[in-house]
């Protein structure tokens, strides 16, 4: 039963990935703007446009181009950048690692902290701690990412001079040096994700707290923390895992803005540059990496949710 469910979820995930790749391909190839025209601008001669179309293979049918693109992607051939003619894969490789490093540092701090804070506020519902944290997290949710980033730079890099404002990382840096370099961008990301994740964790636990078996536990005379930790938490685990997955999407979006604020050499920065240069192969590659990561995270979260909650294994 468990194997079949897992298989079904995996199949669904792969189908979604395919659909996402079609969406990204269609977005860049089939929209009314002609890529060749866009590269050259309005003043281009028809001959130049035709030459570029030939070079990009735009004269082939869209389905063929899509299959060719996907086949290349699966084999690590991401095409060549239109802006400088270099292979996209070569530009991505160290940037992808940088972005993954930044995002995982942020996730490693934010996820446990958010879950613990969510549980504490749920135990303390409507208490002083809950109200203060709630107010702070509402503000954090409402504040743009770059505002948090610039405030951190102003305080810790400019006024106190403790940390670098530009997150320059190079291949020769040790882990400690890297951590110092990404301290400010990682803190920005943590603050952005933490608030969302904590609020939703709290909501998930409170959603379980209104159920009859919780009332029974209270009536048995159990202390509040035991009811929350032993009775509510295991049942809220599945929704909390989903919450974490959803919020890792904020991380994906946040990472793009944060990389630009701190001039961090990652794929978010690369994608933004590519969009302003209309460098389609780079945009497609970055888009598929971001989109694919998001789909994969959601799939893993669903599988974990099935594992921790036996009730989800029974077909309804």
């Amino acid at each position: 039963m468990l194997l079949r469910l897992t298989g079904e979820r995996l199949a669904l995930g792969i189908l979604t990935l395919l659909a996402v790749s079609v969406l990204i391909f269609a977005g860049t190839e089939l929209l009314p703007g002609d890529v060749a025209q866009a590269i050259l601008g309005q003043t281009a001669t028809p001959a130049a446009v035709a030459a570029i179309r030939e070079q990009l293979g735009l004269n082939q049918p869209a389905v063929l181009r899509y299959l060719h693109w996907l086949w290349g992607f699966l084999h690590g051939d991401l095409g060549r950048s239109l802006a400088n003619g270099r292979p996209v894969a070569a530009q991505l490789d160290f940037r992808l690692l940088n972005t993954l490093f930044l995002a995982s540092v942020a996730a490693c701090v934010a996820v446990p902290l958010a879950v613990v804070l969510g549980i504490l506020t749920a135990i303390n519902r409507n208490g002083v701690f809950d109200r203060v944290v709630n107010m702070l997290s509402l503000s954090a949710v409402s504040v743009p990412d770059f505002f948090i980033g610039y405030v951190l730079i102003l305080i810790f890099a400019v006024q106190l001079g403790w940390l670098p404002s530009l997150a320059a990382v190079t291949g020769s840096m040790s882990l400690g040096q890297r951590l110092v370099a990404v301290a400010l961008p990682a803190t920005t990301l943590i603050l952005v994700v933490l608030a969302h994740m904590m609020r939703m964790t709290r909501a998930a636990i409170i959603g379980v707290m209104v159920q009859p078996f919780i009332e029974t536990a209270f009536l048995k005379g159990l202390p509040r923390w035991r009811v929350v930790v032993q009775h509510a938490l295991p049942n809220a685990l599945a929704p909390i895992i989903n919450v974490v997955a959803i919020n890792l999407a904020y991380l994906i979006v946040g990472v793009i803005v944060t990389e630009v604020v701190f001039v961090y050499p990652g794929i978010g920065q690369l994608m933004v540059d590519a969009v302003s240069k209309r460098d389609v192969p780079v945009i497609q590659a970055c888009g598929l990496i971001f989109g694919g990561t998001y789909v994969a995270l959601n799939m893993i979260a669903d599988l974990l949710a099935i594992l921790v909650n036996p009730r989800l294994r029974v077909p309804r």
Partner: protein
Amino acid sequence: MRISGHRVGIGPSIGFLVILLAIWAAVAGPMLAPYGPNDIVGDVWGPASAQHWLGFDNLGRDMASRMLYAARTTISLVIVTTCCTFVIGVIAGLAASVIGGWLDIVLLRVVDIIMAVPQLILALIVLSVLGTSIPVLIGTIAILDSTRVFRLTRAVAMNITVLDYVEVARLRGEGLWWVMRREILPNSLPPLVAEFGMRFCFTLLFIAALSFLGLGIQPPATDWGSMVRENALAINFGLAAPLIPAAAIAVVTIGVNLVVDWFLSIHGRAHGEEL
């Protein structure tokens, strides 16, 4: 203070005040601004003074005047976009629940696929092909974000379409449009009103992020997000210039969120909770 019999606490009152101020700045801002948005009247990042409350920007333009001009662009663009989001989302959601059948299935699948990718990624892809202009911005964000409105409208309307009075209206021979507009829409309003506030905040932050990345509003027009971008370098000299427009965005979003929280507490649904 009370609004239609409900007590309004301090938080929501501040929220209402912020919203009124933002609308006032958007409507009357350009008339109040002492200088034109592109007049160079002082030194680069010059300090604030009695005549120039917020100092000068990266080209020596009056910051306060630019903030007021940018308020009109920002607020009006966000309101228009959010309205488009709702027109698309609500009509699609109502149609899916009232007509049902294949239309419902097709719309649900399309929305699932769009929602499987973070919105910023899709928006970047569309903007890279179509180029950045105000109609493209509005259209892209409205279509991408209407997926959430569609889901909410469909979920709420599904519970109403099965009620007797809708059946009665149909048997009476009322048309599809009439049933959607007169029977279902008025009864699903409260969650939609709250959702409007949340979508407004999302759109405000989203357009600000795009402008900050240089892919939103293009000069000489300006909004708060692009003002942050223009003045970003000042932060390295310890100047707060980019924080002024960023704080304006934050204050408006917090204000709207406070009102949404209050509205939801009246209608018995906690912020962020799904239906």
